[in-house]
């Protein structure tokens, strides 16, 4: 499963950051490392991009790139503010 098809609010763990080159490096540098917890917080009204909550920050990337990040579901339910 990738970030692009994750459901809103699901608590996810990053397994692998695919893609390549500079963009992948930038995602890693922003803290999207394997093992990091992430949630898809919202989807833009026009369907793209999506908003992620990672390490307490809101980051937005496009679905095309989100599809390169594979994740597994941790536990269902709303991601609460203040979680690590």
């Amino acid at each position, binding site marked *: 499963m990738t970030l692009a098809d994750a459901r809103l609010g699901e608590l996810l763990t990053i397994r692998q*950051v695919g893609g*390549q*080159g*500079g*963009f*992948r*490096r*930038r*995602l*890693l*540098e*922003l*803290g999207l*490392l*394997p093992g990091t917890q992430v949630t898809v*917080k*919202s989807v*833009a*009204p*026009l*369907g*793209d*991009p999506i*908003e992620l909550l990672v*390490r*307490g*920050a*809101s*980051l*937005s*990337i*496009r679905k*095309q*790139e989100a599809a390169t990040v594979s994740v597994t579901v941790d536990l269902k339910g709303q991601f609460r*503010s*203040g979680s*690590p």
Partner: protein
Amino acid sequence: MTMAWPNAVSVEVPQKPRPPVILLAGNPNTGKTTLFNALSGEAARVGNYPGITVERRSASINVQNPNGSQEKADLVDLPGAYSLSARSPEEKITLEAILGLASNPVPSLVVLVVDAGQLARNFYLLLQIMELSVPTVVAINMIDEVSSPPSMPELSRCLGVTCVATNARKKIGITELRKAIDQALSSGTPPSINLDYPASLLGELGKIADALPESWQLTESRRRPMALWALTSIGDDELRDIPSELRLACENMRIVRNDHDLDLEIVHTRYAWIEDCLRHAQNKGLSNPPKRLMSERIDRVLLHPVLGFLAFALVTIILFQALFIGADPLIHLIEIGVSACQSVVVHYLPSGWPRDLLVKGIIGGVGNVVVFLPQIALLFAIIGFLEDSGYMSRVAFLIDRVMRLLGLHGRAFVPMISGFACAVPAIMATRTLERQRDRLLTMLVVPLMTCSARLPVYTLIIGALFPPSRLGGWLPLQGTLMVGLYGFAIVATLGAAWVLGRTVVKARRVPLILELPPYRLPHLRSIARMVVSRSGDFLREAGTIILLCTIVLWALLSFPRAPVHNGPAASAMVTHVAQSAQQLPGNARPQSDAERAAETKPIIERSPGAWIGRTLEPVLKPLGFDWRIGVGLVGSFAAREVFVSTMALVYGISDNDTGAEVPLRERMRVERKKDGSRPYSPLVGASLLAFFAIACQCSSTLAVIRRETRTWRWPAFLFAYTGILAWLTSFAIYQGGRLIGLS
């Protein structure tokens, strides 16, 4: 007693030593600029980084020597960055400034501004700077936003650099930060950290370190971090000045070690160190939950599929209203002021060309410059609010889907939409875009938007040359044309963006990474400061060019001198910038003008402007334009709406049939050639409208692009491409219309 400034030691400097340079670095949205203002307290100097048109803001601040005496230091506000690794020249600025490369001065100290709620991610940049052994002080900013702040002594001990808690908006912690800066400047000990990179990685890194260019003058301790920088920056980049050996070394390393995920190894090692450090500092400095919950609640409305777009539409309408209507009273006031100055001068000075130069060239030219200020100030105030509150990122988030079709970032929306008011502030607003290429592309297409200066021209042409009839019996022709022109402008802008983005300013597609910071109350003083600085910048840099243009255009249409008693129409010329056709001069005094007409006729017909108009006629004829329109086009360079008054002038002077002053609109409607045909048929009108819609014959726009790009190349390109496109479009309309039997 000698000073112990890190850069002044042991070097004998014959002249006055340069003040130490302190760099302010940090991620975007950390309140860096607010902290810059809090530290400097005075107006910043705005310049550019060497070789690139990225704004370099700096200010002189007082620092204290160990012996207690005051000394000046240069505080430089670096562009926001998440990391030192760079793919583009503008991203490389941070590294170059920190290392003192590319004719940047070698800094004595870096003050890293950190968002207290985002320590881990912010420390990534800190770590990179510390690896380069640059003396550093950390400002843990927006400390009020975290519920249980980490202990500063503990954090300082873990990191090995001094950390100070600050709240730049409330000016809390600034004194402590200054003290830390003074101390770091006098001690000057660079941090030294050693990360546990995998041994296999380090083993191969030597080859890259060997390929690092001599010109970077790296000390031994900087070779390894720079080799890491090269490895994580080079390849898939747009960097200039990277020696080919270095490129090759990085490529080789990736090939040799292709069984390893090098990027992940490097980034992972750094984050492991950061997490370890934060574990020791007890508290991770999490964002204050109530604050973030509030942000989430606001987003639930502002990013809602329906409500979000309503709010977005509302913001767009406010932007429009402010630029069109809000700025209007001020613009009007400026115009009244300018004409009052002109009347005073006219009243007290004897007539003659020096007076005309003063009145029409200089005072009129200053008016032409100042008249932009209300819109510029308002637009930047609005941008300041949008940026500071965090809504600008949401605008980008909402509209990205549309803007990316043009190969532009969502942030380009505000400059684009401002183009409907005026291209000049819109072009200045492109500074909110990070990539040079995006800025350039936006600048090159925004002048195609229907700016408000085109409206008087459209009103004149549509009113004069098109009958107030209804299409199909119900659709009013004139109104439809006006709406059509707006539609045409949007299509032309989008089309030009699409084409230019794939040709002239082609660049590799850069995926979007957009941070949506929590909503914050805008900081009014910072916004006011920015508005003043932008306006001053415009006056100084673009204003002089615009003033010069106005004087040249005045001269073009005013020499050789006419007999002394030239008519009122002549004196009402070029300077009457915002006059519409209906208010044109001379209505009041019909009889005397007929007499004057004969004498004054030669003025404009013999002027260089008319000569240009006539010279251009062979080029303009296929579009259906005569020399008079040519003169009007020359005049419209001062400002598009001047076309109207220049045309009136052309008619006011060369009027030789009825002798009655008819409003210009009437005049153009009834004008007949010798053979009885209309020189200004609706077909000519359509051709002229298309020409005005596309051609960038606006000296102010060209001047402001020259200011923003620091070269005449791009204004020249814009002028040429819009000119050619306008000619071709008008040609197609006029000749096509004739082919199907329109006259």
